[in-house]
């Protein structure tokens, strides 16, 4: 577990370093995620896709992602510092969230169903 947490942090740090060095527009952890994905793909060429993810990494990932919701809580509590703003801009925020979510789900679902028709 601990070596794998270190591994994830190394990928994140490498992502941060790359972002600063190349002035990339993507957050460091996202670059780290893409780097880990590419590493797994390359590893999969040797081991086969089923064995590409080492068991300890799978366990550490399950532990972290199994309670992914918990990690959002501290930032979410920050809502208390924005209550006045949320109340002031309740109409534009509600319109933007509801309107764009429903439109996106409709567009994604209908397009994918049309284009992805099984032969």
């Amino acid at each position, binding site marked *: 577990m601990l070596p794998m947490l270190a591994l994830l942090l190394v990928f994140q740090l490498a992502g941060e370093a790359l972002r600063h060095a190349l002035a990339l527009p993507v957050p460091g*952890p996202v670059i780290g995620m893409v780097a880990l994905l590419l590493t797994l793909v390359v590893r999969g060429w040797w081991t086969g896709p089923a064995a590409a993810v080492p068991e300890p990494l799978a366990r550490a990932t399950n532990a*972290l*992602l199994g309670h992914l919701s918990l990690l959002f809580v501290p930032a979410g509590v920050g*809502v208390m*510092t924005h209550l006045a703003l949320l109340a002031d801009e309740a109409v534009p925020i509600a319109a933007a969230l*509801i309107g*764009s979510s429903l439109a996106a*789900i409709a567009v994604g679902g209908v397009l994918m169903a049309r284009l992805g028709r099984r032969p």
Partner: protein
Amino acid sequence: MEDLADIWVYLARDPLFGLTLTLIAYLAADRLYRALGLHPLANPVLWAVVALAGVLWATGIPYDRYFEGAQFIHVLLGPATVALAVPLYRALETLRRSARAVAVALPATVLVASLGAIALGLLFGASDSTVASLAPKAVTTPIAMGISERIGGLPSLTAVLVILTGILGGVLGPPLLSALRVRDPRARGLALGAAAHGIGTARAFHEGAETGAHASLAMGLAGVLTAVLLPLLW
């Protein structure tokens, strides 16, 4: 013997307080969520946040002091984002089979979700920083907060908007897709994962494994695509 009030003053100042309170609130909210059969409205993030904000408000503890302890949980969002590579890798095989449809439908969903939010926000008179906070609301929180910070939004406001978006998508998405006669599990999964990130993906897994796999994939790809696209557009 020390006065109870003195002990309270001492404890409330300790970073351990925010950390412990966060864990307890989350565990209680998670238990409630499971007891209610994973109902989208019982979302554990939503209710843990409501409970914690209530406690802080009632006790007058400022958010900054709470965060001194809670940051030890917050900091794990970074490695958790990196860890998303593992489910993404496992879904790659599924993607290969519907790659061409995904290549069109996914960017379309991402564009409608982010540009739609920006347009509606501007149309109804939201401030610049609110529009920037709204733009990445469809992708998973760690990515959305990073984008928000980069384009001049408020990351903590974005976190709240992301969670609200997930709940909206999880509750309203499935009936909307049924009304549009979208029955293909791959299409339902893609729409829910791309427009409502992890909460939509959790909901998609309740409909079936193929729906869930496409949702995880869509969530990951939408996150990367939005992270590349929005800072360039800004």
